[in-house]
């Protein structure tokens, strides 16, 4: 029943943020950031179990672990980049948010290059 806890936390946080925002917008921004961080850390710990099961499945299917670890790294980068983007956008800094987003995309692309080259190699071997 963790979802109840999360919803309750978010509602309480929203009430407090709305109270503080009238007078001190900068503190309200920090407070919303803290609420988001608490929720996201909690959810990521829940996700850890699922990831462990996925890793075990991949091990049993004898997949190449390089691909799974690259995939997990990409998901991690996506979460972190999305968090940074949302914080910047909340504070009204759309330009910075866009740059953080771009950085996340580039980092994901860098991690995806080995996978793409593997696909190209496989296709090359299949074609006569």
């Amino acid at each position, binding site marked *: 029943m963790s979802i109840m806890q999360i919803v309750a936390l978010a509602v309480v946080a929203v009430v*407090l943020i709305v109270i*503080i925002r009238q007078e001190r917008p900068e*503190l309200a921004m920090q407070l919303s950031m*803290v609420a988001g*961080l*608490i929720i996201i*850390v909690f959810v990521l*710990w829940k996700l850890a179990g699922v990831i462990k099961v996925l890793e075990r499945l991949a091990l049993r299917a004898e997949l190449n672990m390089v691909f799974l670890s690259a995939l997990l790294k990409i998901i*991690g980068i996506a979460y*972190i980049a999305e968090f940074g983007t949302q914080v910047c956008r909340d504070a009204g800094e759309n330009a910075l948010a866009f740059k953080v987003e771009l950085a996340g995309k580039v980092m994901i692309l860098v991690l995806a290059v080995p996978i793409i080259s593997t696909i190209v190699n496989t296709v090359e071997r299949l074609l006569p």
Partner: protein
Amino acid sequence: MDLLNVDMLFKLAGIGILIMVFTQVLNQAEKKEQAQLLTLAGVVIVMIFIVKLIGDLINTVRSIFNIY
């Protein structure tokens, strides 16, 4: 690490409301500079907590998704 730490949120909201009230009092007493400094102090104190939380988040993501 497996529970929602609501204490942190309430602590920081308490700091926020306290600073809000004191700033209003100082503004009423015509002490604008001190009110500004109080706000700055509040922002810095909350920022310390936020940096700790961001460190938590990054360590969590690192350990879960195997990023080094």
